[in-house]
């Protein structure tokens, strides 16, 4: 078990690409840290530098207080789980899991008992003598985990270990990874693309963009208090809605109507010296069908009326999409987020307001709907650099 510290760690590839820039992270002993960010933001590079598979261009990596920049991977005592699993195809499951122990010259009896112990934890006992090519994806994934845990390393590094599994298996494996990590209490750095994994697995989440750390914090903290537009848009699914807005003595003119800001939001914006033109963000889950609100409750919020473009009923909730008259806010950050979400995301991302309503909502496609939201939940961002003007961390 180990404490891992990245001190202004930078990676510049020989071709000049700056993959990671002055990354500062302190990972406590036993902590589970998640690295998230869009494709190509340097997550794998950062992980490989901790592993020793990539050289560090500048900065210092300390494992348990000792500088580790120049240590060979084998001397760092860190295990890694690869996205492709990277199992040795010519070895049986047992040999695969025993490989790190054999290299460490552990005696046969101990190897045997350790492998069997790990196999029992991962439910692989009956597959020990099979070859990886004969296993299912989930089983291969577990063998890869097994190979990492047998030698009780100081830390685990995992690079999108579940991304090759189908959705259901991914859910199951997510739970077992989390349980396993808690059971072993080993320091873990986990790279993922997946919202759910990022939100549920880690003690802390590190959001990366273009090789630069945007924010570090617990998943809930990042959700509640994003430091900037990018983090706000990246954390949460469906992502936060952004509209251009104008601040005018305590009220906010937006395409959703003019909103009276709450004292809290106004004070924060003033303290941050907010410009007149801002980007207002509000999460889909902070809207509600006004018809379902109690009158007293409704008074505390704002309401707007718009026509429902698309309605998606998910069973437990409904997603209603609205088009707003004016152009939606666009900044470099938002464009990058939209590009990363790709076509797989909800329809109309970036051109529509998404709201999450209770399942009991009577909303219908093509019909106007009164939508309520809480102005206290609004976050304001500086369009110039994306900083959260209402940050209260």
């Amino acid at each position, binding site marked *: 078990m180990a404490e891992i510290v990245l001190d202004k760690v930078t990676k510049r590839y*020989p071709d000049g690409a700056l993959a990671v820039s002055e990354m500062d992270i302190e990972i406590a002993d036993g902590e589970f840290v998640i690295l998230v960010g869009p494709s190509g933001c340097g997550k794998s590079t950062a992980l490989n530098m901790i*592993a*020793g*598979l990539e050289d560090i261009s500048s900065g210092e990596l300390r494992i348990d207080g000792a500088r580790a920049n120049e240590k*060979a*991977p*084998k001397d760092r005592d*860190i*295990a*890694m789980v*690869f996205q*492709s*699993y*990277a*199992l*040795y*195809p*010519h070895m049986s499951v047992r040999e695969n899991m025993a*490989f*790190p122990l054999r*290299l*460490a010259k552990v005696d046969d009896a101990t190897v045997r008992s350790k492998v069997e112990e790990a196999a029992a934890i991962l439910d692989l006992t009956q597959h020990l003598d099979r*070859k*990886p*090519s*004969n*296993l299912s*994806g989930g089983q*291969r994934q577990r063998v890869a985990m097994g*190979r990492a845990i047998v*030698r009780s390393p100081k830390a685990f590094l995992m690079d999108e270990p579940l991304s*090759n599994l189908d959705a259901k298996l991914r859910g199951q494996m997510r739970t077992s990874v989390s349980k396993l990590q808690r059971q072993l209490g080993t320091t873990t750095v986990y790279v993922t693309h997946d919202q759910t994994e990022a939100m549920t697995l880690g003690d802390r989440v590190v959001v990366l963009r273009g090789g630069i750390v945007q924010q570090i914090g617990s998943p809930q903290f990042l959700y509640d208090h994003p430091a900037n537009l990018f983090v706000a848009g990246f954390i949460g699914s469906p992502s936060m809605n952004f509209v251009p807005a104008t601040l005018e003595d305590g009220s906010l003119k937006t395409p959703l109507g003019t909103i009276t800001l709450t004292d809290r939001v106004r004070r924060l914006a003033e303290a941050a010296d907010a410009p007149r033109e801002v980007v207002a963000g509000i999460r889909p889950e902070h809207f509600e069908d006004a018809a379902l609100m109690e009158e007293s409750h409704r008074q505390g919020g704002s309401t707007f009326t718009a026509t429902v473009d698309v309605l998606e009923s998910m069973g437990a909730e409904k997603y209603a999409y609205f088009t707003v008259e004016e152009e939606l806010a666009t900044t470099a950050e938002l464009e990058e987020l939209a590009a990363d979400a790709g076509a797989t995301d909800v329809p109309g991302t970036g051109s529509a307001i998404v709201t999450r309503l209770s399942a009991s909502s009577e909303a219908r496609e093509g019909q106007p709907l009164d939508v309520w939201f809480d102005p206290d939940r609004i976050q304001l961002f500086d369009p110039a650099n994306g900083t959260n003007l209402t940050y209260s961390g």
Partner: protein
Amino acid sequence: MAIGGAVTTGRKARWALVDVIVVVYALFPVLWIVSLSFKSKETLSDGNFIPREWTFQNYADIFATNEFIRPLINSLGISIIATLIAVILGMMAAYAIARLDFPGKKLLVGISLLIAMFPQISLVTPLFNIERELGLFDTWPGLILPYITFALPLAIYTLSAFFREIPWELEKAAKMDGATPGQAFRRVIAPLAAPGVFTTAILVFIFCWNDFLFAISLTSTEASRTVPAALSFFTGTSQFEDPTGTISAAAVVITIPIILFVLFFQRRIVAGLTSGAVKG
């Protein structure tokens, strides 16, 4: 169903016919030599495919003299040593080409390609003179060295294709599991490259075993003459006798090691050895 069956039978018959033609075309000269090797001197030129009288005399003759046995030993020794060295060097070079980025990599590949393209006959005279100067003429190393040189491009090409197929991540995984680069190569990469190594070994061995040009030019005595060269020196019992029978017998005998070599290694060439390494 019946129609479908008829179609497949028809197709099968056509394929069988094509196969037979190809096999007969390829094997006929070989079979003819086998047939010649079993004929006696009197019936040698009677034109019969199946010998009228079977005899092992030709085989007995070639094994009775040093004229064949000594070259056979030379051939085996020289080919095996050259193959071993070429494959080991080729493995290192191919690995470097497939995996590492180093200055001059393109140049290295280009030069090895150049060697493969060079007409060997143009090098025979210079080699002859060099080897005479160095005292390598008519020695085992005198043949092993040029064989390695000309086998290396072949070995590097075949092997680097195989190395490229091995997922990079396996090596990273081995490093993370605590292997030194040497251990990673020996315990993970080399076993996975085995089919490529055996394929290359077969090709290189056949190249060395069958070479005539260097063997005839760079040797002068039985100290290092290999079988292909020795065959051309075969004589009958008298100067006027035709050595066709003994040459045929010798040709049959020297084909056997190649067949054995291929059969032996073929079992190790298991296709798809790397399947299951990565997701799939």
